[in-house]
């Protein structure tokens, strides 16, 4: 995303496009990413329920993964996953 100069800002920084927050990829804040081990995953969906960003999604085969555009790497999914199928690994 190209950052605007101060001259380009709208008056009062009004955001005139609804839903445009999704263009802001908060995944750039992440220092760790969650990795699912589908051999241990029982598809209970607790990671999906607890993710505060709502970025954990279920795929067609029933397994889960995080949308890394928005995953901030908080680790709540890994903490809550009782079969211990999610591991947090350092980002490069």
């Amino acid at each position, binding site marked *: 995303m190209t*950052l*605007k*100069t*101060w*001259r380009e*800002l*709208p*008056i*009062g*920084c*009004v*955001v*005139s496009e*609804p839903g445009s927050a999704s263009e802001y990829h908060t995944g750039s804040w992440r220092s760790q990413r969650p990795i699912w081990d589908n051999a241990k995953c029982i598809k209970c969906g607790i990671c999906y329920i607890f993710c505060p960003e709502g970025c954990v999604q279920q795929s067609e085969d029933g397994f889960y993964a995080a949308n890394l555009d928005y995953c901030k790497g908080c680790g709540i999914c890994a903490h809550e996953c009782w079969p211990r199928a999610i591991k947090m690994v350092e980002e490069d």
Partner: protein
Amino acid sequence: MGKRVGLEVTVAVAEAVALCRIDMAGVYPITPQSHIAEHLSNLVADGVLDAEFVTVESEHSAMSAVIGASAAGARSYTATASQGLLLMNELLPIASAMRLPICMAIANRAVSGPLNILNDHTDIMPQRDTGWIAVFAENGQEAVDLSIQAFKIAEHKDVMLPVCVNIDGFQLTHMVEPVELPTQEEVDRFLPPFTPHATLHPARPVTMGAFAMSDYFAEIMKAKDEAIKNSKPVILDIWTEWERMFGRSYKPVETYRSEDADILMLTMGSMGETARLAVDELRERGVRAGLLKLRLWRPFPFEELKAAIGGAKKLIVTDRAISFGGPGGPVFSEVKSALYAQKQRPIIYNYIFGLGGRDVQVKEFVAMFDKVISDVDNKMADTYEFWGVRE
């Protein structure tokens, strides 16, 4: 032209605000502002003014309510003083950052403690850096005129910033003064309907007051600084238009017998009226004394101040607040920094007076001039003194 009538200044201000056809007022009563709130609510209750008068539960709510109303596109007004203004504090920079043209009267009153209800400028000074345009009235007529001008300045498309009109508590607010209120037709001609830069409306959803991180925060601050600096030419134009329509002149720095003055005094607010009498007395004695009255506090009128000081040798800056443990009064430190890069600048003195409503009489202004004149070696220069404090 309206009729000249005798009115308590708060009532006159409320009448002036009603002439501006406000859509909404959110005011919490506090001495010495309360009569503005009371009279506005009477005007609404009597059906004279078609506006929502929101009886909020605190000044924090008052400012929150006017921010919401202004964001919805309503011409919004509030008034407060002292502790009330301090309670509003956290919302003041939000109103200016959202570029909402809210107008507010501040019936300047000392800040506690100790508790004191009387006049000084210790309430407005801590709000200096909140991004509000700030003007000071010297008498009732100015309080009326500035209250009407405030909406036109605030709502100008090149400004879109909140404006506070400072009216000295009791010294001005509770005086019955001869005031000329413009007619409704005249105000309608002067003040066009409010056209907001954006509004909260379900059909056209926008976000106002969004979150910003370090990648944008500095740019937003820079844009706000430029906005308030750029408001000055608009303010000057509006004052010129006012003078053309109503015959009363307004300048960022008002001058009185200052053209050939060797020694100048600078005041802000109602004290200018008394200081003017002192200047007359000194002039009769042959002292080339003059007076500068700072009307526009934010944006600070650097150029106009330098021009008004001209070649004066000594300048007495008066303050009705103090920056504890700092350089003296806030006006003093501002004026000093404005003059720092000047090759020719006056020797500068600071008297802090009129705190918590203490009266300052003509003879005391004369004594201040005399004390500075007698300081031939400039030993007291660059210092501040609590005038009249018991040792």
